[in-house]
């Protein structure tokens, strides 16, 4: 796969207060590919992925060292507003978190805060996003019902649709299936594979089969360090590090 590098982390250290949570992470995220981040609970996967859209700078007393860049430019550069970055780098969270608004309003929200006023265009984009997120058929008759009345799996696809509506280029998924049943999980996985054509995707998962199924590259995190990063098939068939091998074969974690 001859991919361009889209985002890059170089010697990234991250601290919550005085606790160092990430240690010297250097990792490339390739364009139009799915990069999976795996590792045991608490190893810093969420922390890492939340650095990529500057979500973690909301945590008081946290500190970032090293450089994270997108298209060769540091994401904390002077002229790089976190709001602009987040429009480019969307995020889907572990627990589905639709707003307590209607299905329609949930998706229109991102467009409205980004200055879109044209009602017709908003409606078009809502429909398109729901179709892309494979939710349209299930909700087309009740767009103005509360989003909170959807099932967990539908809510998560709504969150994906909401994210797609603002046309990001990179999408970050933090364990998007952790709270879903197997059928919803397979729907979301199929969706991610579909989205790969148009987007650059980073997905955190602690489900090894999921990483193997959907990703092109895999990074294994352990206690705040990136132990190994390679093509997914290499990680899952010929890992170089003993710890990676132990983890993917289920000997710890």
């Amino acid at each position: 796969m001859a991919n361009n590098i889209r985002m890059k982390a170089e010697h990234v250290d991250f601290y919550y207060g005085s606790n160092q949570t990430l240690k010297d992470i250097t990792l490339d995220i390739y364009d139009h590919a799915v990069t999976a981040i795996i590792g045991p609970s608490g190893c810093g996967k969420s922390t890492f992925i939340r650095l990529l859209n500057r979500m973690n700078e909301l945590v008081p007393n946290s500190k970032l060292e090293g450089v994270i860049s997108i298209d060769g430019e540091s994401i904390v550069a002077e002229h790089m507003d976190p709001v602009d970055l987040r429009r480019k780098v969307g995020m889907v969270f572990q627990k589905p978190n639709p707003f307590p608004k209607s299905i329609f309003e949930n998706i229109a929200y991102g467009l409205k805060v980004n200055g879109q006023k044209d009602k017709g265009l908003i409606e078009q984009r809502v429909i398109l996003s729901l179709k892309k997120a494979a939710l349209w058929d299930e909700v087309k008759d009740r767009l103005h019902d509360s989003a909170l009345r959807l099932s967990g799996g539908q809510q998560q696809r709504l969150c994906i649709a909401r994210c797609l509506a603002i046309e990001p280029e990179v999408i970050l998924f933090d364990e998007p299936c952790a709270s879903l049943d197997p059928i919803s999980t397979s729907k979301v996985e199929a969706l991610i594979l579909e989205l790969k054509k148009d987007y650059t995707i980073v997905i955190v998962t602690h489900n090894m089969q999921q990483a193997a199924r959907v990703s092109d590259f895999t990074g294994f995190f352990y206690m705040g360090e990136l132990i190994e990063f390679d093509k997914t098939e290499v990680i899952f068939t010929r890992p170089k590090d003993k710890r990676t091998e132990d983890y993917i074969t289920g000997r710890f974690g």
Partner: protein
Amino acid sequence: MIKPFITRKHQEKLIEWFFFLNGIVVVAILAGIFMLLLMNAIPAFREVSIAHFLSKPIWNPDAYDQPTYGLLPMLVSSLMVTVGSLVVAIPLGIGTAAYLSDVASPRVREIAKPAVEILAGIPSVVVGFLGIVLVGPVISKLTGTYNGLNALNGSILLAVMALPTIISLSEDALTSVPRSYEEASLALGASRWQTVILVKIPAAASGILAACMLGMGRAIGETMTVLMATGNAAEFPHSFLGPVKTMTSTIAIELGEVAYYTTHFYMLFAVGLILFIITFIINLISDIIFHKHTRLQ
């Protein structure tokens, strides 16, 4: 094992009874106040009809030939200063709460939150004083009115007094909005202000509404401040720049001078009863809203 004198079960029963009794006492006091007002208000209507009380636009108990006891002037006065204060306090209070909960740096918050609480503790007579020496002259300068002791002055002061309630309860409501809503909004490229206004305030709406209702309850029952700042002219109010005499002021001023057991005396209790009912309803509504809010969380 020796069986203890009071078993655990008895102990729990005792505690339960203790709290039950406390509850009863509070309800009894409330009912007692209501009865006291009611018993003293009833004799007022031996000489004057209820219709007279509720419909006459004049309150003039000292008229030589025919005293009138119309509730309307003071009811309208009370509503004017209350509504006026809310017009100032609600936007300012919600704005401040949003700023404190979502935009202010932790250091600003550390200073501002205790300051708001201190504001709540300022005696109302001191606020009234400010009305006379500060707000009054300013209003007088700006509008060319005689001394600036009017409904506008009262509204501003009551706003100051309702603000702490509105700010701190609204802030609590905003803080209890699930963090996941906020994260979702920010991750979609919304700014912090957009997030507060479009996501957090709607999600906290019932808590904020309850806060405003409580602030309103505080404003309508406040006495000393309005007594000092509103001019107390016993006429039907026509403008915010004219003096008004609220229900609370009327009671406070006249109850000290009135001859006991006269119609005028009993009438003041009738006014008190109306005030009691109004504040009771406001508090009840805010309580209902508030409980609905906490149940949804």
